[in-house]
């Protein structure tokens, strides 16, 4: 009996020793939940290529991602926004040099029912509609029909972009319908003649009609050249220029293969 336990302990110890080289390096990514699906997809592919590298991922929001770089608790901090002046100041006092890497782009398009005659709205009109001030399609050049405002749940990344770029800190009218997913929003807009909603570009299909914003249609090209207004770059921050595994991971993410994965999760490639 005793020798049995002993041999188990020895076995476990040996297994642990054997596992050490297999663990190899660990790469820690923290931050934005918007970047998380991209990071996850790329990390899976990267770990398949390099079984000796372990990547640990966690969310927590953009601020947490940048904070993790400032604290040194992560190798890469994900953020769906640029670093704020206050954070840069904090970084310099700590002797940290945050470097942004633009890894993907996000583009949100407003969508309406396919029979809606409106084709274009300005950002100001979109804001008024979502504040509940414009209530009828007539007011923006459409048919006499009540506008049904459809929004996303407040915790979604898409809502975050919309709130930031269109609502400008003001609140979406409480009577707005909320839908828990991009797909559900398409479904709701497709079956409601007076509806307006917004989705990530990757979810656009034939069932709904995309509107152009300030006369510019949302496409990967207009997003990349910065003409389309409801878009934003997604970042990964590192402390100083990346070296070693971190650099290799970011290079992989920015390679053609990595960018294909970015496209697969519904974001827009940087080139």
């Amino acid at each position: 009996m005793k020798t049995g336990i002993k041999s188990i302990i020895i076995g476990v110890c040996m297994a642990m020793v054997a596992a050490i080289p297999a663990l190899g390096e660990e790469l820690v990514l923290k931050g934005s939940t918007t970047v998380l699906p991209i990071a996850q997809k790329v990390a899976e592919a990267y770990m398949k290529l390099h079984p000796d590298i372990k990547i640990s991922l966690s969310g927590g929001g953009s601020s947490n991602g940048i904070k993790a770089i400032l604290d040194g608790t992560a190798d890469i901090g994900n953020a769906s926004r640029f670093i704020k002046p206050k954070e840069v100041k904090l970084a310099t006092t700590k002797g940290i040099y945050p470097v942004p890497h633009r890894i993907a782009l996000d583009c949100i398009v407003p969508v309406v029912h396919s029979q809606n005659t409106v084709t274009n709205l300005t950002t100001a009109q979109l804001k008024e509609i979502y504040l509940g001030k414009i209530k009828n399609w007539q007011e923006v050049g459409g048919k006499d029909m009540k506008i049904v405002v459809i929004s996303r749940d407040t915790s979604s990344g898409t809502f975050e972009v919309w709130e930031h770029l269109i609502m400008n800190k003001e609140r979406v009218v409480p009577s707005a319908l909320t839908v828990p997913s991009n797909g559900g929003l398409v479904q709701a807009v497709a079956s409601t003649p007076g509806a307006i909603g917004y989705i990530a570009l990757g979810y656009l299909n034939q069932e709904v009609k995309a509107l152009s914003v300030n006369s510019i249609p949302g496409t990967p090209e207009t997003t990349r050249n910065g003409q389309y207004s409801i878009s934003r770059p997604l970042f990964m921050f590192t402390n100083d220029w990346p070296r070693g595994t971190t650099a290799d991971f970011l290079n992989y993410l920015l390679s053609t293969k990595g960018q294909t994965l970015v496209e697969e999760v519904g974001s827009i490639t940087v080139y």
Partner: protein
Amino acid sequence: MPKQQTSEKIVQRAFMGVALFSITALFLIMLFLVLEGVPIFKEISLKEFVFGLYWYPTSDPADFGIFPLIVASFLVTFLSGVVSIPLGVMTAIYLAEIAPVRTAEIVKPVVELMASMPSVVIGFFGMVVVAPFIQRTFDIPVGLNLFNASLMLAFMSIPTICSISEDAIFSVPQALKEASFALGATHFETIHRVTLPASLSGICTAVILGMSRAIGETMVVLMVAGGAAMLPGSLFDPVRPMPASIAAEMAEAPFGSEHYHALFATGLVLFIFTFVFNLIADYISSRYRQVGEASL
């Protein structure tokens, strides 16, 4: 000790263990709910939480008022009751008293099978078929609303109400009905004055169990209620009942944040409601229980 007694003891202990395990697990879940929900009251008062009119959990500054959510939950439950109680109870009366035995034998299992319909299927049906239909028929802007959600919830609770009521009506002693007939009462008079009063406690239990199923139902309201956190002005306004809010937001709420605790507190409020519902059901079924044939 004789062998039989030993095995008796073992069986007894085993059953006690199983019972204790399930009760403990449920109790721990309840404890967890309380522990995770209470921290929100450090940020806002109970009154602001329960009677606050705005639910903007991720804005800055955030608002955590769940009053529109509570009202929505009550309204969908109440309106679904308006539809499901008469339909469920009348179907039960038909099956137990009026229908030919052959018909009842076929219809009853079918109704009971309907209780096993997955709620996501009902929700999907409501979203894809009923919503456009309501929207066209009543010429209203949107079909995902209070009315649609109540209708779908009614479909879900009818089988529960019907099958439990039917059991209650069916178990009314034959002697009571025969006595009524002997006094010259018609079939309808017997149902109305004798059978129904005698089975009232069972019917009440059925109704309340059906209603507590409706108030806790998540998938249906998430899919067809529309999800607007406001006090509805009409039957055709979109609403956001409590379970829908929790289900939609929990996945994205940062762990340990105010939003996270607010969702648990919402769950706690919901739990209190269903708990009270079940207490009432329990009270009614014991208070008005038909004891023998003399208490009528």
